[in-house]
């Protein structure tokens, strides 16, 4: 070994730097994971405030608080911030923290690029939020930014929206390449792919989806940019283009994107349920194959988002049946989670409560998705609050509950302290009640015909809208409790043991709590394989 390596080896055992520059310059996967998670939470609050503006306006029929133009900006920005700013970075943060610890790697494979992936995001979202203060206002065309609303009729700030999306895409692609490379190249010697924890598997597949579809999103916003500033005709039928082309390209990105936001959640839940049921995960192999099948199917079902646009009937039928096929691997997963809990020695700590709520409420969201997949029925449901209820059920008590479950589950490992269990359970029940009170009534008003994205509505929808708004404020404000619980846990509390949970399995539980700044500088020896 040369002297240089010796030097670098000393480097290796450095603790973190002091002060702000630690966070700006860091290449440590745990620091970067923390950055992602805090950033995500900040965006969650920002996007949540926008949701509360929407729900406050919809508390009663008529226009009370905001003008319709601003209402449109709120629905648009709420969607964009929650999807790209809250849910996706939270999962990347979890991947950063957990993947190297779960596979026995010293860090992410490309640590400097890891830092770059994160630090692009504050710039991107700063630019996106600054559009609120620009002339003509922020983007107001919905988070799906359909042309020509987002091209011919868009405010000038759309240019900055487009570049913000480009930055998010660059960040996501680099982050995903890092995850894929880490998983494929840095597993502890002897760990085969089929030995990996399911969270690692789901992230491997998610990262693949991201690398495949974020460039398509970049392509579609580039076409918008060209249509707006250079007079191309991609989305203008007057020049031989087609606004529907926008929807096809967008949803070719958009549908895999939906699974990008849920597959890591499957991984989280598949880690938590076995721990608190004190049983091995039922059907590990089938979980892996189901995840891969869902990922594959996500590429060939995109047009179910646009049944009412006037597709040839053969297309509608194909997309209907292909979509319904997704229920099969998803059903396999739900079955496996339930079978894991079957006859287990269950306890109900906060992560488990969130995980069980995930299984039940995500299934409700999945079933309403199945209803939406039926073409003739979809003509009735399309663009109503039923759709809003559907995707909020899979995203809020789906993705976001899983993120919270993950936070409670791994916080003791990250901080070395147990969170306050009573407060955690309080947070869970407030969230659980809040989320259902908010979104369940939206099924009813949607089926009754209330269209989405309007600041005003007919009188017959008034009662359930009022209920929904009350639920939204309960859910929104109970997240401040979550913030308090996390800060309290970071500051101190009962010391966590190394194993933390008595039924927990996996390499991350073999290291000290809190996890040392550098873990697995030499790869760990794996425990004997039970199945070999």
């Amino acid at each position, binding site marked *: 070994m040369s002297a240089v390596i010796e030097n670098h080896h000393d480097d290796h055992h450095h603790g973190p730097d002091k002060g702000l520059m630690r966070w700006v310059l860091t290449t440590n996967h745990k620091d970067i994971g923390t950055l992602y998670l805090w950033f995500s939470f900040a965006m969650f609050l920002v996007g949540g405030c926008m949701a509360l503006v929407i729900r406050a306006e919809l508390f009663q029929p008529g226009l009370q608080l905001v003008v319709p133009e601003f209402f449109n900006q709120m629905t648009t920005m709420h969607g964009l911030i929650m999807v790209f700013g809250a849910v996706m970075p939270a999962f990347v943060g979890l991947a950063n923290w957990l993947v190297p610890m779960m596979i026995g790697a010293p860090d992410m494979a*490309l640590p400097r690029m890891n830092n770059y992936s994160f630090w692009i995001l504050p710039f991107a979202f700063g630019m996106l939020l600054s559009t609120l203060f620009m002339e003509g206002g922020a983007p107001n065309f919905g988070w799906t930014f359909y042309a020509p609303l987002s091209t011919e009729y868009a405010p000038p700030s759309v240019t900055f929206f487009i570049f913000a999306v480009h930055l998010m895409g660059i960040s996501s692609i680099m982050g995903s390449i890092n995850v894929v490379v880490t998983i494929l190249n840095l597993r502890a010697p002897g760990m085969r792919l089929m030995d990996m924890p399911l969270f690692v598997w789901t992230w491997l597949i998610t990262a693949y989806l991201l690398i495949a579809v974020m460039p398509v999103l970049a*392509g579609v916003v580039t076409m918008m940019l060209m249509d707006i500033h250079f007079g191309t005709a991609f989305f203008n039928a007057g020049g031989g283009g087609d606004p529907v082309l926008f929807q096809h390209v967008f949803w070719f990105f958009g549908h895999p994107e939906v699974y990008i936001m849920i597959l890591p959640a499957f991984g989280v839940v598949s880690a938590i349920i076995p721990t608190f049921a004190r049983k091995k995960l039922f059907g590990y192999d089938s979980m892996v194959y189901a995840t891969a099948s869902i990922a594959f199917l996500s590429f060939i079902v995109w047009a179910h988002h646009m049944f009412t646009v006037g597709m040839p009937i053969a297309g509608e039928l194909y997309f209907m049946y292909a979509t319904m096929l997704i229920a099969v691997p998803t059903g396999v997963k739900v079955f496996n989670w339930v079978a894991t809990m079957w006859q287990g020695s269950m306890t109900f700590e906060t992560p488990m409560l969130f995980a069980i709520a995930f299984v039940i409420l995500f299934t409700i969201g999945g079933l309403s998705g199945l209803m939406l997949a039926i073409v003739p029925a979809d003509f009735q449901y399309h663009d109503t609050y039923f759709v809003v209820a559907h995707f909020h059920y899979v995203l809020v008590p789906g993705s976001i509950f899983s993120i919270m479950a993950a936070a409670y589950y791994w916080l003791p490992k990250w901080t070395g302290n147990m969170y306050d269990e009573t407060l955690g359970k309080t947070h869970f029940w407030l969230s659980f009640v809040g989320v259902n009170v908010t979104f369940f009534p939206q099924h009813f008003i949607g089926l009754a015909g209330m269209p989405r994205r309007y600041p005003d509505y007919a009188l017959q929808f008034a009662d359930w809208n009022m209920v929904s708004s009350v639920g939204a404020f309960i859910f929104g404000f109970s997240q401040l409790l979550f913030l308090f619980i996390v800060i309290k846990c970071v500051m101190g509390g009962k010391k966590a043991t190394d194993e933390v949970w008595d039924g927990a399995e996996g390499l991350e539980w073999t290291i000290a709590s809190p996890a040392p700044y550098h873990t697995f500088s030499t*790869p760990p020896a794996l425990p004997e394989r039970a199945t070999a």
Partner: protein
Amino acid sequence: MSSESTYESYYVPHNSPLPIFASLGIFLTVYGGGNILNEMSAGTDSNFGATVFALGSLVMATTLFFWFSKVIEENHAKMYSQQMNKSFVWGMSWFIFSEVMFFAAFFGALFYVRFWVVDWIGGEGERGPSNMLWPDYVPQWPLLNNPNPEIFSTPQGVIGAWGLPLINTILLVTSSFTVTFAHHAINDGERKKIIGWLVVTIALGVLFLFCQAYEYYEAYVHLGLTLNSGIFGSTFFMLTGFHGAHVTIGTIMLIVMLGRAMKGHFTKTDCFGFEAAAWYWHFVDVVWLLLFVLVYVIGT
């Protein structure tokens, strides 16, 4: 465990100022770019966008220069293990895959428009009623008669496949061979040959770009085929334009590799920088072949 004896330490840099400068650089570049476009479309006279854009590009270029220098320096200091090199190989492969998907979006758009939209606007198929807007429109490809000629200018013609595009195809395919010859020369350790073949490859790339620029000149000045002349111009210029941009990037990569070859950087077992550039070059070549067939031969 037997694997522990073969364990090589994996290089984890302690911290680095490079990424934050790169973040700042890319942000200033796009923020400036956005301002330039909005100033252009609004017709305002301002240097703000251009100034920020230039500043951002400068920060970005400088940072990338230092970043790659740092990586090369660390490699020469033997800080990288075989495992690290494998990370680079995977990383570059997945990056190229993402580029493939970017082009797929534009090829997909071309396919959709060509096979469905052009006919639908003319009243074919199940979306027939759309022809009521423009009764004079007759579906054809290449689309030289835009449904609404008041907004979209009418081109006189399109670029045929068997002139310049054929020459360009020959240039690029040849360059894919010459870059492989350079790789063989690295394996044989013959530096003069490495430099020679790289110079030839770069020359072919530059020649290609020159031909492409001349083709654009022809299209704009003599044929009236522009970005504004409807969907044919849109898909044609976006596909060939992004390809041209990628050839430019590939050429810059090869020029850097030429500089490194002159310094004697590459050996048979240590030439990943060169290989990455070569893969990128082959990828650009494959995209061109697709373009040649789908845009020029079948497309015109």
